[in-house]
C-alpha cells in the first residue's frame, strides 16, 4: 500500500495553495466513484458538495481555515446525515433520509470536513466481516500474496470505512465500535482504528445497536490523523444522557512529546494462550521496537477473559432486540403490506431484516424473556461488572495493556459460515468494549501471506491523550509506513 499524506500535511498543501479543495475532493472522489471494493453504499458527487467545497476554499483564501477544512472523509452508513440516505446497510432502512444530522458528523462539518459518501458496513453493525450488509460484501483492498485471486473480507462491522481508507478513496472514515467494529477492520486493513472511552463521543443520531456499548471513532492512516478527528468529535452532548462532561484534552498538542517518565505496559498472558506464532510475533515486535525507551513490560493475567464473549453475546443482542423494536414499517423505513396493523409489523420486520440481524433479535428476545432474564441477562450484567473490576485491578499495576487486535489475518469472503466462529474474531476487542475503556489498533506487521496484522493498546478511562502519545511512538518505532 502506498504511503498516504496525513491530514496535517494535506491542510498545509491547501494553505500553501499547492492544491485546491476542489482538486483534493476530485482526487478521492474519482477512486470512490469506481467503488471497486463495494466500500460505499452512496458516493456524493462534486456537484452535491459544490457549496461546501467553495466555502472551504474561501476560508483558505481568507486564512480562516478550520481544523479539518476541505478534508474528504468517509462516513459509515450508520450515522444519520441530513438529507443523505442512511441505511445501516439494511433493507428496512434502504429508503430512509434523515431530517437531522448526527452529533458526531455535525462536529466534523463544523470543522470544515467534506463527506465523500456513506460507507458500507454490516447490517445494523452486526458482523465481523462486512458480509451481512444488504448491499453485498466489501472486499479488502489487500491481497494474499500466495493467492492473489482470493477475495478477502475487510473485517467488520466498519468494513466499508476501513476498505475506503485503505483503497485511498477518503482520507479517513468515521466508524462505530460495539465489540470491535472499528479496531478489527482497521487491523485487517493495515490501518489505525480508535475506539474512545464510552461516553466520549455522543451517540445521538447514530443508528443504535447496543446502546451501552456503541461508540463512534475514526479509522485513519496514522495515529496523528486519529487525534485530529478525535479533537473534532469528542465533546459533551446533552442529547445523549451517557455523554460524559469531563474536560477534553487537545489530542494533537504534544503528540510527539517524549515520554518524561517510566511507563508500564501489561501483556495479558491469557490473551496469548491459543494464538498462532504469527500473532505472538506482533506482540514481540512491538516490545522490541520500544526497547530504547523507558518502558517496562509486565506479564498480567485477567480472570474474566474466558467469559467476555459470552457476556457480550447476551448483552449486545438484548439491547439490539430492544433498539430494533422501533422498525415496524409505520413511521419510516420500508413497509410491507398487511391486512391489519400486526401483519404490517410482522411482514415489514421479517422481510426487512437479514439473517444475522434476525438471529440477534431472537437471541436478545430469548435472554430477556420471562423465565430466562435472571439466568442470562442479569447474570451477564453482573459478570460485566466483574470484567470492569478485573481491568481496574490490572490498571493498578500498569499504565497500558498491549494485546493482539485479532486472532487472525483477513480471511476469505464466505469462509466463516458458523456464527460462533465469526464471533470469535472479536475475542480480544470485546472485553475492552464491555469495560467501556479506550482501545486503539495499530498496524504491527505483515503475515506470511503479506496481509496486515495489528496490535491493540488499551488505556484507562478518558486517557486518550496518553494513549495516542504512546501509539504515535509505537507507530514511529515500528515504521510500518516506510
Amino acid at each position, binding site marked *: 500500500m502506498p504511503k498516504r499524506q496525513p491530514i496535517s500535511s494535506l491542510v498545509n498543501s491547501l494553505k500553501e495553495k499547492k492544491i485546491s479543495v476542489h482538486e483534493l475532493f476530485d482526487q478521492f472522489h474519482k477512486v470512490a466513484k469506481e467503488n471497486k471494493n463495494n466500500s460505499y453504499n452512496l458516493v456524493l458527487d462534486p456537484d452535491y458538495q459544490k457549496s461546501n467545497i467553495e466555502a472551504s476554499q474561501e476560508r483558505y483564501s481568507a486564512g480562516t481555515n478550520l481544523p479539518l477544512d476541505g478534508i474528504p472523509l468517509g462516513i459509515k452508513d450508520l450515522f444519520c446525515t441530513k438529507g443523505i440516505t442512511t441505511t445501516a446497510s439494511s433493507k428496512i432502512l434502504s429508503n*430512509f433520509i434523515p431530517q437531522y444530522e448526527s452529533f458526531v458528523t455535525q462536529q466534523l462539518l463544523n470543522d470544515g470536513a467534506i463527506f465523500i459518501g456513506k460507507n458500507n458496513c454490516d447490517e445494523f453493525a452486526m458482523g465481523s466481516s462486512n458480509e451481512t450488509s444488504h448491499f453485498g460484501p466489501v472486499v479488502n483492498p489487500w491481497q494474499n500474496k500466495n493467492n492473489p485471486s482470493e477475495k478477502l473480507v475487510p473485517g467488520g462491522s466498519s468494513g466499508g470505512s476501513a476498505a475506503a481508507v485503505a483503497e485511498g478513496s477518503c482520507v479517513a472514515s468515521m466508524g462505530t465500535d460495539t465489540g470491535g467494529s472499528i479496531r478489527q477492520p482497521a487491523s485487517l486493513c493495515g490501518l489505525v482504528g480508535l475506539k474512545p472511552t464510552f*461516553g466520549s463521543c455522543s451517540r445521538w443520531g447514530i443508528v443504535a445497536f447496543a446502546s451501552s456499548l456503541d461508540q463512534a471513532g475514526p479509522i485513519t492512516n496514522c495515529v496523528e490523523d486519529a487525534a485530529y478527528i478525535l479533537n473534532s468529535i469528542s465533546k459533551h452532548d446533552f442529547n445523549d444522557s451517557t455523554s460524559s462532561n469531563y474536560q477534553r484534552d487537545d489530542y494533537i498538542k504534544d503528540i510527539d512529546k517524549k515520554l518524561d517518565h517510566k511507563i508500564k505496559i501489561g501483556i495479558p498472558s491469557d490473551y496469548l494462550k491459543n494464538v498462532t506464532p504469527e500473532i505472538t510475533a506482533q506482540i514481540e515486535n512491538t516490545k522490541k521496537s520500544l526497547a530504547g525507551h523507558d518502558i517496562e513490560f509486565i506479564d498480567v493475567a485477567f480472570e474474566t477473559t474466558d467469559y467476555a464473549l459470552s457476556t457480550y453475546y447476551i448483552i449486545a443482542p438484548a439491547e439490539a432486540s430492544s433498539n430494533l423494536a422501533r422498525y*415496524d414499517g409505520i413511521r419510516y423505513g420500508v413497509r410491507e403490506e398487511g391486512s391489519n396493523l400486526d401483519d404490517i409489523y410482522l411482514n415489514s420486520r421479517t422481510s426487512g431484516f437479514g439473517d444475522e440481524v434476525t438471529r440477534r433479535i431472537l437471541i436478545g*428476545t430469548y435472554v430477556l*424473556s420471562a423465565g430466562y432474564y435472571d439466568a442470562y441477562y442479569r447474570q451477564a450484567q*453482573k459478570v460485566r461488572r466483574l470484567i470492569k473490576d478485573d481491568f481496574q485491578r490490572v490498571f493498578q499495576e500498569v499504565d497500558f495493556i498491549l494485546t493482539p487486535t485479532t486472532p487472525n489475518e483477513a480471511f476469505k469472503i464466505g469462509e466463516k459460515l458458523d456464527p460462533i466462529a465469526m464471533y470469535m474474531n472479536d475475542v480480544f476487542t470485546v472485553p475492552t468494549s464491555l469495560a467501556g475503556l479506550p482501545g486503539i489498533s495499530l498496524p504491527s506487521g505483515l503475515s506470511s501471506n503479506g496481509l496486515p496484522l495489528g496490535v491493540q493498546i488499551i488505556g484507562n478511562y478518558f486517557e486518550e491523550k496518553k494513549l495516542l502519545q504512546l501509539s504515535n511512538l509505537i507507530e514511529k518505532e515500528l515504521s510500518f509506513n516506510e
Partner: protein
Amino acid sequence: MSDIDIKRISYLAKLKLPSEKEEFYSQSLEDIIQWVDNLKKIDTSNVKPLHNVTEATVSIRNDNIEKNNTPEDVLKNSPERAQNFFKVPKVVE
C-alpha cells in the same frame, strides 16, 4: 430438535419466520445459548449488575421545548400518511 420454543420467541420479537427457516434459527439459537452457558458457573451472588460503565457521568438537562423540526420533517419518511398523521389500517372496530 432443540428445546427452545422458536415460535414463541419469534412471536415476542414480532417476526414471522418462514417454516423452512424455523429449524435453522432454532438450532442456531440453541448453539449460541449453549455457548454462553459458561456464565452460570460464576458465583455472582454478591455482585451488582452493571448497566452503564460510566456510572458517574449521566448528565441531566432541563426539559425545555426546542423546535428542531416541523411535522413535515417528521412525516417525510412515512410510508403512508394522511394529512399530518401516519396512516395505518383500521385498528378499532
